């Protein structure tokens, strides 16, 4: 099958670009794939279906949404909440009316009024503090012939949002680890690492406070915070506390090395936009125990590989308790590490993920036509023996069709 594959790709720096760089060669072994260049106006010739990778960043994904508008297709929904993307494509381009319409689609008149407030500068930008309440996913879903996502959480949210098309949950593939070299992390007992874009949603202030408490019982503990710092957290020396080490953006090799050096990887979220963490998957594939927030995709990780912390008033105490438990129990870390390796091999294996992609693409691309073909034969036969549209027998037939996966 010929597939047009829309995605950011390296050298763009984004998690989804990295994701596609990993997945694309595996898919190219299984499908004929054309990759339009960034900003392409036309769908590649001869392609039978288009696959659109969509995340929340308007710079990376705006042109892909434009392509989706021209030609519906299969959407890989990397985030469920697309508020930032939509705001960038509307307000960001001077299209206030587009933003008003998107908010109205999500939340009716109240949404439109809030949008007015934002557009007129009377309210702070919603995407900075309440995006999860207004996901603005409607337009993208309305143009999706099918959706691929990475978590049951996003699958559920899309269903609740009214999406009735096919959805396939496919785990994010695990990266092959690079060759490891000299240690990047400081020595410590234990060493915790939190890697990625360091913003408030990663619960950095809570992590720093919990780590400070941990240090009282485990004075040799170290916490490495690696990655660029967002404006909504303060990480200058005065805020770091004892035992905390800051590293700026790491290249891929050093990033892997840091994850390999650490004893525990911390990957907290709150709120979640429905995203999956590439860092968490890298850590799993290195056999590292995880500490995660108990929400979204993170909740779906098995307890054997991840200790989960609620995002509520108990968060600080429970996070502290979880860190202390891991710091004081070598055997637990070892057991979780082995389970993480096995889990990554089983669930995030690249070939398995690629096979599932092919299955989903094939089902979504031709599925409606196949269903229509079978249904029309059944409907014709029913009609020929006098079973009409409103007869109860037709409902029974429809139920049977659904039971074998051919219903609507």
């Amino acid at each position, binding site marked *: *099958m010929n597939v047009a594959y829309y995605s950011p790709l390296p050298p763009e720096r984004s998690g989804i670009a990295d994701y596609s760089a990993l997945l694309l060669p595996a898919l190219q072994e299984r499908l004929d794939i054309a990759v339009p260049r960034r900003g392409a106006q036309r769908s590649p010739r001869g392609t*039978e*279906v288009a696959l659109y990778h969509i995340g929340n960043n308007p710079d990376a994904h705006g042109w892909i949404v434009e392509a989706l508008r021209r030609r519906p297709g299969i959407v890989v929904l990397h985030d469920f909440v697309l508020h930032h993307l939509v705001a960038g494509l509307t307000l960001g381009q001077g299209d206030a009316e587009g933003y008003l319409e998107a908010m109205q689609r999500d939340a009716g008149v109240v949404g439109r009024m809030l949008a007015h407030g934002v557009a007129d500068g009377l309210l702070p930008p919603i995407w900075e503090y309440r995006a999860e309440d207004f996901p603005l996913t409607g337009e993208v879903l309305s143009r999706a012939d099918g959706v691929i996502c990475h978590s049951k959480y996003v699958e559920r949210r899309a269903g609740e949002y009214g999406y009735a098309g096919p959805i396939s949950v496919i785990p994010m593939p695990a990266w092959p680890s690079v060759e490891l070299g000299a240690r990047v992390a400081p020595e410590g007992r234990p060493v915790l690492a939190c890697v990625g874009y360091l913003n408030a949603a990663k619960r950095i202030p809570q992590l720093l406070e919990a780590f400070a408490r941990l240090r009282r019982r485990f004075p040799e503990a170290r916490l490495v915070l690696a990655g660029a710092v967002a404006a909504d957290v303060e990480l200058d020396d005065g805020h770091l506390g004892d035992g905390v080490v800051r590293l700026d953006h790491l290249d891929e090799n050093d990033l892997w090395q840091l994850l390999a050096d650490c004893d525990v990887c911390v990957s907290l979220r709150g709120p979640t936009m429905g995203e999956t963490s590439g860092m968490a998957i890298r850590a799993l594939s290195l056999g590292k125990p995880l500490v995660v927030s108990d929400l979204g995709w993170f909740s779906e990780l098995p307890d054997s590989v991840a200790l989960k912390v609620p995002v509520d008033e108990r968060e600080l105490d429970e996070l502290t308790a979880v860190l202390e438990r891991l710091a004081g129990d070598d055997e637990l870390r070892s057991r979780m590490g082995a389970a993480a390796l096995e889990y990554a091999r089983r669930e995030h294996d690249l070939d398995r993920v690629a096979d599932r992609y092919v*299955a989903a693409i*094939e*089902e979504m*691309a*031709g*599925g409606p*036509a*196949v*269903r229509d*073909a*079978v249904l029309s*034969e*059944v409907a014709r036969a029913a009609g020929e023996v006098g079973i009409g549209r409103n007869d109860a027998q037709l409902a029974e*037939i429809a139920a*049977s*069709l659904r*039971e*074998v*996966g*051919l219903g609507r």
Partner: protein
Amino acid sequence: MRIAVCAPQVPFERGGTEILAETLVRELRTRGHEVEEVKIPFKWYPRASALREAVVWRLVDIEEAQERPVDLVIATKYPSYAIRHSNKVVWLVHQFRQAYELDRADFGQFGEDPFDRATVRAIHRVDRQTLREAKRLFAISRNVADRLERSTGLTADVLPPPPQQLDYRSSEAAGEFVLSVGRLDRAKRVDLLLEAAALDGSLNVVVAGEGPDRNRLERLSAERGLDGRVTFAGRVGDDELVDLYARSLAVFYAPFDEDFGFVPYEAFLSERPVVTTHDAGGPLEVVVDPENGIVCEPVPSAVASALSWLAANPEEARARGRAGKRRAEEVTWDSVIDRLVGA
């Protein structure tokens, strides 16, 4: 117990599955069960027809008949296991192979366009949804069970069926020919045997069976100058079949990745060795080289050399046939039915 045995029927065809279902019905009745064989014509082409056939089976209501419950349904192969019943047992002969191991292979049916690809996926979905409803899941061979597990993640116990019960007899006389038994379609690869006969001018061949590949095979036979050494016997009756087995030197049976195949068992009950190939699938679970036959590469020269060796070593050929008989006699209907009805 009131039991319905479900089997699709390709009209005007009779092969291993039909024999299996009929024999199962007879054996169940012999043991005091009230049994009905439920057959629905099966047509798998063009395109999405195989899906329509699954729907047809799904619409069959056999939970009860004449206000008395049907206690057990035994389904055999795609799409009969799509039937809905509260006590469904599947004795899997095979899934719809064109959507699995034959897909994108020489014997496949589906192309690369989105409609065909989605049809294949929809058949997979039918299988996943309807096979997992089974209270017990058996497969006629390890090969079929492995395919099932690979494609659906479902596990089945291997329960090989006994061969049809004929008055098999053996003969101490030197075999006169190499026998091929089975439906004539490309996947059975009778052409391998004909090409082998072309390489060894001393081999005579009898091909018993009918099918869509017959014309091509007859042309091939003529092109290779095998007239007089190859006999196309067509569909043969039970007595003639028993006679052919008894008079044969060896039986050639080398379909591509076959589910199971009764032919080796029938050959063994006639004390005849079997020649098959490394890629034959199910037959490899019963044909053991050198115990009861020869397993060779799927190329004419290897087949020719295996058959020539058996012709040159008749004592060894007979010994291998006798060893096969001991193995075939271990598979009985008593044990099969005990497991199917859950005794």
